[in-house]
C-alpha cells in the first residue's frame, strides 16, 4: 500500500463566534490526525489565529480542514517567510497597527519598531503596507 502520510502547515483564523469552541481537538478524535500548534494568538480584532502543523494521512488532512471550514474557520496555507531589512526601516509603525499577531511591535520609550519572526504568520499585511519595502516575503 502506498504511504499517503505527511505533514502540512496551515494558518487558521477563528472569527469571534467560533473562537471559544473546542473544534481543533476534533481533528484528532474524528480524523486521527496529529497536530503541533506552532503559534497561537488573539488578534486586536478579537480573532483567534493559530499556525498549525498537521501530521497524518493526507486525505484525512483535507477532510479535517474541510470540517474546520464548515465550522466557520478560515484556512490558509502557510507559504512564506517574512523578513525585515532593518536598514530600510525608518520606524514609522504603520505595520504595527496592521500586524495581527504582535510580531511587529513598537518598543517604548524608544519608539523603535521590532520584528519577532517567531510570532509571524506570514499574512503579508506589513509587506503590503511598508512604504520603504523594509518587510519582504521570501519565497
Amino acid at each position, binding site marked *: 500500500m502506498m504511504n499517503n502520510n505527511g505533514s502540512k502547515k496551515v494558518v487558521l483564523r477563528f472569527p469571534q463566534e467560533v473562537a471559544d469552541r473546542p473544534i481543533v481537538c476534533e481533528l484528532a478524535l474524528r480524523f486521527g490526525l496529529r497536530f503541533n500548534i506552532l503559534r497561537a494568538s488573539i488578534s*486586536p*480584532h478579537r480573532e483567534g489565529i493559530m499556525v498549525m502543523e498537521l501530521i497524518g494521512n493526507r486525505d484525512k488532512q483535507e477532510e479535517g480542514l474541510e470540517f474546520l471550514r464548515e465550522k466557520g474557520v478560515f484556512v490558509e496555507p502557510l507559504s512564506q517567510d517574512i523578513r525585515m531589512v532593518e536598514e530600510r526601516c*525608518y*520606524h*514609522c*509603525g*504603520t*505595520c*504595527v*497597527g*496592521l500586524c495581527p499577531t504582535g510580531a511587529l511591535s*513598537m518598543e517604548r520609550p*524608544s*519608539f*523603535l519598531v521590532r520584528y519577532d519572526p517567531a510570532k509571524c504568520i506570514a499574512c503579508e*499585511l506589513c509587506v*503590503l*503596507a511598508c*512604504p*520603504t*519595502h523594509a518587510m519582504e516575503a521570501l519565497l
Partner: protein
Amino acid sequence: MGTKLRTYEEINEKIKKGQVVVVTAEEVVDLVREKGVERVAREVDVVTTGTFGIMCSSGAFLNIGHTKPRMKIHEAYLNGVMAYAGLAAVDLYIGATQPAKDDPLNKVHPGEFRYGGGHVIQDLVAGKDVLLEAYAYGTDCYPRKKLVTWINIRDLNEAYLFNPRNAYQNYNVAVNLSDKTIYTYLGVLLPRMGNAGYSSAGQLSPLLNDPYYRVIGIGTKIFLGGGIGYVAWQGTQHNPAVERTERGIPKGGAGTIAVIGDLKGMSPHWLWGVSIRGYGCSLALGLGIPIPILDEETLYYCSVSDEEILAPVVDYSHAYPYGTGEILGYVSYAELRSGKITIGGKEVPTSPMSSYSKAREVALTLKKWIQEGKFTLTQPVAQLPGVESGVRFKNLVERPVEASVIIGR
C-alpha cells in the same frame, strides 16, 4: 507674560560662546511640569522641534548645465520619472509624487508604485548617477533635440529642495468604516475600523509648538533633510482660522509652510523615497525648527504635550473622499501613541505614518548643532498669515464649461 527675555542677537551671541541652553520640545514638557513656565523660560534659550514623515508637495529644482550644441528641454525623464521642464532651457523640477512613466499605477489595484520622484531625489542625494533622457523641438538658438546622459548631483549647477507644503500643523486620524480594505495616503486601513492611520509628531511637531506663528516666519532657518533650509512662504493650503483648543492648538489640519534648502548639503538618511500602496509615490523627510524663547509666552506654547493635542477621526472610506466633513470624534496624540485608541466603544490599533523616533532624532540633532555653534538662529523677515489674516482654505467651486472650449482630454 509679555516681558522680553532675550533677543535673537543675544541668543546667537550665546551660541558663539558655547553658552546657549537648548532643550527639545519633548524634553521641555517634563521640565515645565517640574519647574513651571516662568523659571524654565528664564533658563532655556532655544527649544528644538522635529518631525519626520511622508510629506507630499515636495520636490527639487535642478539646473543641469548647458549642452553643446545648446538645448531647450521640452520633456525630461530622470530614471524614467518625468520632471517638469517648462521653466527655461535646462532647469527641471522633479516632484516627489510623480510615478515612473511605465508604472502600471492602479491598473492592478492596489498599485505598488515602486519608484517615483521621491526615489529620484533620494538617489541624487545619495550621490548615485541618475539617467537623464530629454527631448526638445529645437530652435535657432537651441538646436539640439535629444539628450541621453548620466547626471550626478555633484555636477549640477544648482540642486535645491523646494517643498510647497510641509510640516502640517496637526492632521486627521483615518479609519475605514466600510467592509473592505482601503489604501490611502494614511496607510492601509482595515475594514470596520480594524486600525487607525495618523501622521504627526504631536508635541515635537514644529507648528504645534508655535501655534499662532509668533516666531516661525518667512526666513526662519531650519533643519531640512539633514542640511540647512529656510521657511520660504506659508505652505499651500495654509489654513490658520480653524477651531482651536483653549491653549491655541488647532483641532485639525491648519498651518503649513513652504520650505527651501540646498539638496547638496542634505543626506539620504533624512530623505527617503516611499511607495504608498494603492496611492502613489512620495518623499519622507526630516524637518526641524528651532524656537527662540523670546518671552514666557513662547515657552508656554512650546510646553504643549501629546495629551493636549487633539486630532479629528475621519472615515476615509466615505466622509473624506466625498468631503462630507463628518468627524467621528477626537483623540489625543498621547492616546494615538499608546498604540490604541477607543472610538465609539471599540478599541482600535493605531498605525502611525510618521516616525516618532526619527522626529526625536531631528530635534536632538538640531539641539546638538546649536550647542556646538554650527547653527545660529535667524529672525523672520515677514510673518506667516495668522488667525486674523483672513486667509482661509477654500474648496474649488466648479463652473460649467461649454463643450466647444474644452481643450484637455
